[in-house]
């Protein structure tokens, strides 16, 4: 398979363009799909080729998400850009009361093939209303597929699968990734949901991370290697469906678990992953599970305070060192 080096945003656009060419039912609802700045060029490509299938909506997130749900019920396959993930909270009822429930409450007879794309996380000065990471909140609502890519190749592969899925898919990207580059398979590239990626192998500890935290965890693993501690970094890539087997296999190899997460720590993604391992692989653990997540305060605007809430490589290293001392 040949590959091309490109940015994360371009990889997303490649998937969307490829699938829009293949399936005329796909439409785009959103004006700035993959962010502003250099990434906005990707939207220009989509408009140029599929102008009549692009709808520029007003800022009315609740109605837009419901509109997409209705269009999906009526034979369309909408791709919806929510923009900043915090705005998904405006559309919360639409996502969790409507889109998530349709298939189940229709006895499996109706479905909502729609993709809801959003950008989560702390980013320089975003402040409380633009730094939300809602993935754990979404995970509390059965019926939604939840995707969190952490590389350009995964972005293309997971977006392709999301666009082909007959289920409502919450596709959560991190704005810090949009301009990062990586090798991406050419042509159609679909990655199955529910298969995690072992980003790095190691014998001493498993670090589970998603989205931007994968990058931070890999930095931490490098720092740990300098101390002679070999960390595995496991990225589940999708929360729903979740790769329990991949997670458990890694914990069985290492006997230690640190879960890194940009969600607020209370009832976070890290909490759910920690609970699964505690329930099902307790005997494999040689030390307590550690969570490195956002402290339970709103994301502060101030740069030094923002630095304090964000999980960092240093905090991960500290957590791993703590576990190594325990056993």
């Amino acid at each position, binding site marked *: 398979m040949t590959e091309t080096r490109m940015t994360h945003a371009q990889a997303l656009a490649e998937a969307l363009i490829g699938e829009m060419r293949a399936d005329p039912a796909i439409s785009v609802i959103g004006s700035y799909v993959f962010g502003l700045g250099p990434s906005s060029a990707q939207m220009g490509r989509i408009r140029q080729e599929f102008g009549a299938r692009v709808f520029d909506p007003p800022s*009315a997130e*609740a109605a837009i998400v419901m509109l997409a749900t*209705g269009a999906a019920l009526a034979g369309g396959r909408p791709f919806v850009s929510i923009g900043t993930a915090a705005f998904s909270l405006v559309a919360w009822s639409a996502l969790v009361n409507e889109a998530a429930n349709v298939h189940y*409450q*229709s006895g*499996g*007879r109706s479905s909502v093939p729609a993709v809801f794309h959003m950008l989560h996380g702390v980013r320089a000065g975003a402040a409380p209303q633009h730094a939300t990471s809602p993935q754990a909140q979404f995970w509390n609502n059965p019926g939604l597929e939840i995707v969190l890519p952490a590389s350009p190749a995964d972005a293309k592969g997971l977006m392709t699968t999301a666009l082909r899925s007959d*289920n409502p898919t919450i596709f959560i990207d991190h704005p810090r990734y949009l301009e990062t580059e990586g090798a991406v398979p050419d042509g159609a590239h679909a990655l199955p949901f529910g298969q995690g990626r072992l980003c790095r192998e190691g014998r001493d500890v498993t670090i589970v991370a998603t989205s931007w935290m994968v990058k931070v965890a890999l930095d931490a693993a490098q720092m740990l290697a300098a101390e002679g501690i070999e960390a595995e970094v496991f990225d589940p890539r999708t929360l729903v469906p979740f790769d329990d087997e991949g997670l458990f296999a890694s914990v069985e190899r290492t006997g230690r678990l640190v879960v890194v997460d940009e969600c607020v720590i209370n009832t976070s993604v890290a909490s759910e992953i920690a609970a699964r391992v505690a329930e099902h692989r307790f005997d494999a653990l040689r030390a307590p599970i550690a969570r490195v997540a956002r402290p339970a305060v709103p994301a502060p605007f101030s740069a030094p305070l923002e630095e304090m809430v964000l999980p960092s490589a240093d905090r991960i290293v500290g957590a791993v060192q703590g576990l190594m001392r325990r056993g």
Partner: protein
Amino acid sequence: MQARRLPAEQAMLARYRAMVLIRRFEERVQSLFRAGRVPGLTHLCIGQEAVAAGVCSALRPGDRIASTHRGHGHSLAMGADPDRLMAEILGRETGYGGGRGGSMHVFDAANGNLGTNGIVGGAVPLGLGAALAARNAGKGAVAVAFFGDGAMNQGVVLECFNMAALWRLPLILVCEHNGYGEFTASDDVTAGELSARGAAFDLPVQDIDGMDVEAVHQATAAAVDSARQGGGPGLLFCRAWRFSGHHAGDGQDYKDDAESRAWRARDPIPRQRARLIDEGLETDESLTALEAEISDRVQAAARRALGAPEPSGPLHEKLFA
């Protein structure tokens, strides 16, 4: 159900038949509710049959509706199977959702029904989406969104008025104005005149006697014809009355008795019955026979639903497509 797009006389009878079916069906649900056989809450549309029958008889195959918490009538008017609808209301495996959804979550895609809905105003954005999909498909189909006067104060509904008008989507917005949102009079919670809100979005508004099935039908047909030809959305205010309260079992002591009596005197079913006889289209005998046939059909639906199994799982089945 009768096929749609019938010659005018047959269509008038079909609308009568639809209204009687809805009335008998709802009365049976009410009696089952009183007997403790209906799980949860259920919202009856007794008194509002003319809206369901009048609107849906202006549609054709390929058109879609999105319905409300008070949606049994809409479902039946779109051609739902009374057996499967009753079974869903009773939480049975043979229901439209296999008992997973119940009264407020009835999906009947084959008949163009995108679902009854438990969220006030929920049908409006869903209908908007169906209208968008219809326009993209380019086959001249339209979508209908049903909602109540209570939903007119939901922000999302006004967001949809904007988009429907902005994009000139083939959407018929049908407000069933029964004067009450749950247990609160519409006037107590509403600033201004509801029907005036359409003008702010350049939405053509028709204010209709919702107790007259022919008036509802004609207004809907005009809006549908315009929407099919690219004329954009229309907003219909159907003034009606909720004879049986917000939900089955609601004593309605918040309503004025004289006002209720005056509305009951305008019951859409006897009105259409008299019209059919006066115009020489039917006789008392022929309609009595039809009514008996419908009553039998509803009794059979209830009997079958009560005899149908409750779901036993597996619990996680049908969560994802």
